[in-house]
């Protein structure tokens, strides 16, 4: 006897159609389309807009041209900038600060805990345009809150967006994204049986010892998940554009902003597509790693 099922195959297929069409047109087709376009000299305007020519690997060759690779405003410069941005703002910033906050929140009074969570989460849920504008005001040279504080402390004022643009977007992205790591680690720590820590307290362990020997080892799986996710998100984040426009003089032009500039300001779609393909390949590595980790965990192999 055939196993009883609620939906026949044909009904199931019909149910899948609307979503399938949308995903096919705007997720799967772009994936293959971008690969194709990256081998052409397609532009927005002019002769090659309508009749792009197949130019093979020329776009990739120009991206990896050794003579200009590290020049400001070129692909290599942007790639290295992006790697530094991810290492500093996602790993050193969001993950470390999120971990520190989550650990301390286990101990501090309840009111302080909720207030801190509220502020950190607000930085994360508010729309990116609003956040960018708030930071724009915060960093303003003449009237901004930051310079007001600097003056109050007797320190020199700074024109932050002009003098330290890269550090501004690193701090900005850390500020913006710490909430996710904090919430993830917070819930992971809360799921550890309190008796483990009580036993350590009786033995006279310091907070650092408890963190190193009990807390961290027990949430290792969550740490891996967190690191992969925030790396992927930070690698693809476009929000700094709203604050700095990629400038001044390309100093904050991380890969998403570089792609935008090449394709939509310089109108070189072919070259922009080639960057898109490279970004997708890097994304693919992270996504496969993430799926591998989650599936391993789902099958019950040591988390």
């Amino acid at each position, binding site marked *: 006897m055939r*196993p009883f099922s*609620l*939906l*026949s*195959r044909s*009904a199931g297929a019909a*149910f*899948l159609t609307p*979503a*399938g069409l*949308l*995903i096919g*047109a*705007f*997720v799967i*087709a*772009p*994936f293959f389309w*971008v690969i194709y*376009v990256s081998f052409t000299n397609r532009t927005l305007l002019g002769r090659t807009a309508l009749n792009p020519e197949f130019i093979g690997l020329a776009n990739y060759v120009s991206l990896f041209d050794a003579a200009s690779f590290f020049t400001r405003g070129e692909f290599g410069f942007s790639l290295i900038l992006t790697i530094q941005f991810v290492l500093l703002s996602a790993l050193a910033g969001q993950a470390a*600060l999120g971990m520190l*906050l989550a650990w301390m*929140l286990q101990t*501090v009074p309840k009111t*302080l805990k909720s*207030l*801190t969570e509220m*502020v950190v989460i607000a930085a994360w*849920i*508010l*729309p990116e*345009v609003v956040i960018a*504008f*708030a930071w724009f*005001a*915060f960093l303003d040279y*003449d009237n*901004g*809150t930051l310079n007001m504080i600097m003056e109050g402390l007797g320190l020199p004022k700074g024109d932050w967006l002009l003098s330290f643009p890269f550090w501004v977007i690193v701090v900005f992205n850390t500020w913006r994204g710490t909430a*996710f790591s904090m919430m*993830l680690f917070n819930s992971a720590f809360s799921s550890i049986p309190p008796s483990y820590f009580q036993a350590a307290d009786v033995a*006279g362990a310091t907070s650092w010892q408890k963190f190193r020997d009990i807390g961290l080892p027990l949430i290792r799986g969550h740490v891996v998940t967190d690191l992969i*996710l925030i790396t*992927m998100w930070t690698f*693809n984040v476009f929000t700094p554009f*709203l604050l700095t426009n990629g400038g001044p003089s390309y100093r904050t032009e991380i*890969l*998403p902003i570089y*792609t*935008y500039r090449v394709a*939509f300001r310089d109108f070189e*779609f072919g070259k*922009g*597509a080639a960057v*898109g393909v490279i*970004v997708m390949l890097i*994304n*693919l590595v992270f*996504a496969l790693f*993430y799926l591998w980790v989650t599936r391993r965990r789902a099958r019950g192999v040591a988390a």
Partner: protein
Amino acid sequence: MRRYLSLYFTRIGFSVLTALIGVIFALPLIWFIFAPFNPRAELGLAIPDPFSFSNFETVFENRFALRGLWNSLVQSVGGVILVGVGATLASYALSRSPIPGKNVITYILLLFSSVVSGSAAMVPIFLIVNGIGLIDTQIAVILVFAGGLLPTAMFILRDFIDSIPKSYEESAMVAGATPVQAFFDVALPVIRPGVVVVVVWAFVNIWGSFLIPFILLRSSEKMPAAVAIYSFYSEAGTPIVTLLAAYSLIYSLPVIILYLFVSWKFGFRFFGGIKA
């Protein structure tokens, strides 16, 4: 005794450090709390004196600003309907029908959607939308958002439907209901909480997004509030701070309200796990 003292001092030390970090996190937001109510707001921090709602009047007198909010609403609601309907039907099929390779399909879709991200996909998405002649239309924005959000929505919803026992629908069908009746009358009411979560998540994502409408739309008449706010402070010589502050607050309200709703109803960990 010393043991308890050290626990006590750890607690004090952690409290001070947490409070300090909390204050640093709050600094960039404080301006944004006062400025909307300050009729003479500048980029500097100042307590509103007098406290007033006149900035909000300015927003409601600005046709372009209102138009932006309306466009945001049209694009978000349109996208949410497509995501809600598409994801409900598809994830129900993936959960209940004998389609071969369902799990593989789910994972491949999820893989594609995380690889084809906003920045890597902006060139091909622009070209595809251009190719089908939909550049500078709101429908293009709606379709692109729906396509991009659907794989994750299906994944979340499928997880949810898998956790509901099939016996509800089975007993309805034993009693003579057709599969379609079993879906609409029995399954749909049960999976509604899952649909609500997915719909709220999709709404917040579309409402807050900047890049897709920024690339696909040309005329200012169709810009959502996100793009309007950006053009207000990036293009005009000197930004009209009073207008921008109030406008940003109005624009943020739906996100704040939905966040509070979800955290009250489902606990914010859920919202946290599925954002982005």
